[in-house]
């Protein structure tokens, strides 16, 4: 897959949808293509993190350690992104991400992400929007859970 095909894929990712193609190409060029075999981990809970991943193909599981062992809390598929919490907040990985099938990703390092956000503020806004959606979603789930518990 060459750069132009990657750019086509990136256009489908919601946070990158409104970014002009030239900048997407720069993002793709400065990022690393990374393939994972089944069972390989993108990141491990508790480890320091320095990169986020955009899933270009395949499925991965998000696993969280618990007293009963790892539990699967969500899955990632094409166009999802993961690992941004560690990169943005400089905290250890909050979950383990493991490839469930052959996984095709774009690995964006912390430095590249910061520099791209500086160059393309649109990208920062889109990421904010996506993160806000996730927060809202989490809030809803929390409310539901509290209600269920009460």
């Amino acid at each position, binding site marked *: 897959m060459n*750069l*132009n095909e990657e750019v086509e894929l990136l256009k489908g990712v919601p946070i990158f949808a409104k970014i002009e193609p030239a900048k997407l190409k720069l993002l793709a060029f400065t990022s*690393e293509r990374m*393939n994972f075999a089944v069972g390989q981990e993108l990141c491990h809970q508790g480890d320091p993190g320095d990169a986020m991943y955009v899933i270009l193909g395949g499925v991965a599981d998000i696993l969280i350690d618990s007293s009963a062992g790892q539990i699967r809390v969500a899955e990632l598929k094409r166009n999802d992104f993961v690992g941004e919490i560690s990169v943005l907040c400089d905290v250890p990985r909050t979950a383990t991400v493991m490839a469930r099938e052959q996984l095709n990703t774009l690995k964006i390092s912390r430095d590249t992400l910061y520099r791209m956000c500086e*160059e393309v503020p649109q990208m920062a806004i889109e990421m904010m929007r996506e993160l806000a959606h996730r927060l809202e979603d989490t809030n809803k789930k929390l409310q539901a859970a509290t209600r269920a518990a009460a």
Partner: protein
Amino acid sequence: MQRNLFSYIWRHSRREQIVILGLVVLAQIFYFLSLSVPKSIVNNGISGNAFKDAPTVQMLSITIPVPRFIGRDIHLFDGFTADQLTYLVIMSFVFLGAVIINGQFRKSINTQKGRMGERMLRRLRYELYDRILRFPAAHFRKVKQAELATMIKDEVEPLGGFIGDAFVQPMFLGGQALTAIVFILMQNWILSLVVIVLLAVQMMIVPRLRKPVLVLGRQRQLSARLLAGRIAETADGVNEIHIHGSSNYERADISERLGHIFRIRFELYNKKFVAKFWNNILSQATPFAIYLLGGYFAITGKMDVGAVVGVLLAYKDLPGPIKELIDWDQQRQDVQIKYEQVIDQFQPEGMMPPELQTMPDGPPPPLGHELVLAGVTVTEDGRVKQLDAVSLVVPTDAKIAVIGASSSGKDVLGQVLARLVLPNGGSIKIDGKDFLQLPEYLLGSRLGYIGQETYLFPQSVRDNLLFGLKHRPISPAKYEGDVAAARELFWLEAARSGNPALDPNADWIDYELAGATGPADLLPCMVHALQQVELDDDIYSLGLRGAIDAALRPDLAEKILKARHTLHERLKDQKNAGLIETFDADKYNKNLSVAENLLFGTSVGTDFDGDNLAANPYVQTVLLKTGLDKDLLSMGLSIAETMVELFSGLSPDNPLFEQYSFISADELPNVRLLLQRLGGKGVEAVPPSDQARLMTLPLRYIEARHRLGLIDGAMEDRLLAARRAFAENLPANLRGSVEFYDFDQYNSAATLLDNILFGRVVYGQAQSESRIRALLTDVLAELHLRDSVIEVGLEYNVGVAGRRLPATQRQKLGIARALIKRPQFLIVNEAVAVFDGRTQDRMRDNILAAADGRGVVWIASRPGQSEPFKRIVVMQSGKVVEQGSPEELAAKGKVYAELMSSA
């Protein structure tokens, strides 16, 4: 060392001086001969004066002309008869002979003088260096190393030139001057008295005029020495200067110093020329007096004219020697001052007596059983008491921890036990003998010391590791034939200069001390020592990145090849597939750059290195012939277009440029203009001046990494054709510049790692590096190659002061250096402080395990480190306040309780 340079020279070179003096006297005979023969040739041989009366004359009566005021000429040989032509021929050859002999003498004298000077210089330098080795440790806190180096290297240098003339010159010149004065005396005593008085005045005044010159010369020497010290300081503190942004303050300082030196040197010129001026005036005062007084005597008839002329003629020979004598005297004072100034710096108080550094003639005896410190006091410059009357019994086989606050004096105690610091009061006895009088080699082999910082010599890891085993030559180096004879002469010469005839090429490694029997089984000992300090993995990594010459180590090269084959066997396994793209002569390697694909080998030297490849004329002809130049050009154009597209909007200082762009931020606007001018007209329209620049762009392009889709199947084939053309037609003079990839050949230019991998780890495979690494480790372990790789890593040069190793590795190497000699008594002086908490405890346990059955004094950087010790010494304010087992101390130790609770 004598403070007087003359007695020093005389003491060490009197025999040579006398021989040279004899040669000088002998040479005079032939010198006069070479002067007198031309006169005979001109007068008799050419003008024929002697043949006016007879056709033949008696010739070759050898006569030594002696100045008339001494006596008559000496006739040595009456000669034989000859006609004028024969006479001319014979006398011409006699002249030639005399000139040659005279020249031979001169050459011999100068050579001998030079050799004597160089020998003395060698001796002096050696003695000075020898003194550095015996300086008390405290002295190094006061002197700067650069100043010591300047003194030994530069400041004693002029002495060598002077030593050859030290005695011969004054004798010779003095003799000449004396004969001239005697002759003047014989002519007229009043006149000669005047001459002598004037000469005396001259000899008194001129040195006095030169006195300020000497004083300034001394200042010049000192200021130059300080400058050298200052420059070294700048190099040492360069990080501080950058961090604090104080470079301009440094500039101010150096400018001030240089100004000072300029003033001294300029003043020196002034004084020198003033002295010269007066010297000239004074030396003309004597002929002035002879003219005036002699003329007066002649006119008044008290002296005849002939005598006045005679005096003048005799005087003609006087100023030369006198002037040179004065110059010699000047030089003498100059070097005497230089000598004194150097010598003064090399006699500090408390130098170690030479007996303590004698070389052992056999294996070292054991150290003794018990160290007894009684009232040991150490003061810093007589002010602060660092150790205050410490009395302590330390069995050399006990494990003792010393704890205390950071200023408790515990570190000083450790240094005293290693004799790095000498006590100002009290005594240290070992089995009743004075500990301070033990020879150094005994301490060096039986006592280990590790301080907080480790100094490493700029040699290999191996040399540093084995440094503590080199106390005496164990077995001499073997020399054969001419080399052996040359070495004999070399040592003979060393002895003549008072240097020791020791051979650094001999095997100095005391294998027994390391627990080995010889060179063959030393490697396991070294690996073991590295394991004890957890440095083996690091050295193993260095080994993988090191290279070996297959010609020198065919056995190892063979084994590495085996590892390559084994690894590639494993790579065929499904779970390892696709980790490495193997070097295949018939396939384009997507994980190599275009340049690497063309070269398909490791570059040796600079011909094909990096950007040189594109500029190499041979490479250019290959590209032209295969038509690849057009391909590269269009690829370059394509890359340029992409770069302009990607990076145009970015600010020029964005780091993305440096990291990712093929074109620098400065050049990007030019390239953009070029593309605009081309207006999409394609490769054909590129002006020749821009072609070279565009063609070099794709050389760094790696398809798998950059993913611009520039290299399709057809292009791969063309690149492969160029690769083959490059290899097939490679001219003989470039054969050595590249070592081609060949699966069955060891590549001496590449690292061990690259040799084993024989391919490139692919881009874009998660954890491929670590998986390959694990695979590699397995293969090497299986083939028992791990130690061999470590052996290669041991050859890694650690750089100046070991700076090519990180601080923790330096310290580990320092500990291993102490452990490998298995010391009977080991002092660990806060040596693990550089490590993190968990590593500190692990290192302590490793060191204690390594010293099983032997003694350890552990100066703890944290009180908690004393946990495994059965005996603990507690220090406070330079005193031992409590000691005993942890249980005893826990029961009653107040300071101990405080320290342990704060830990």
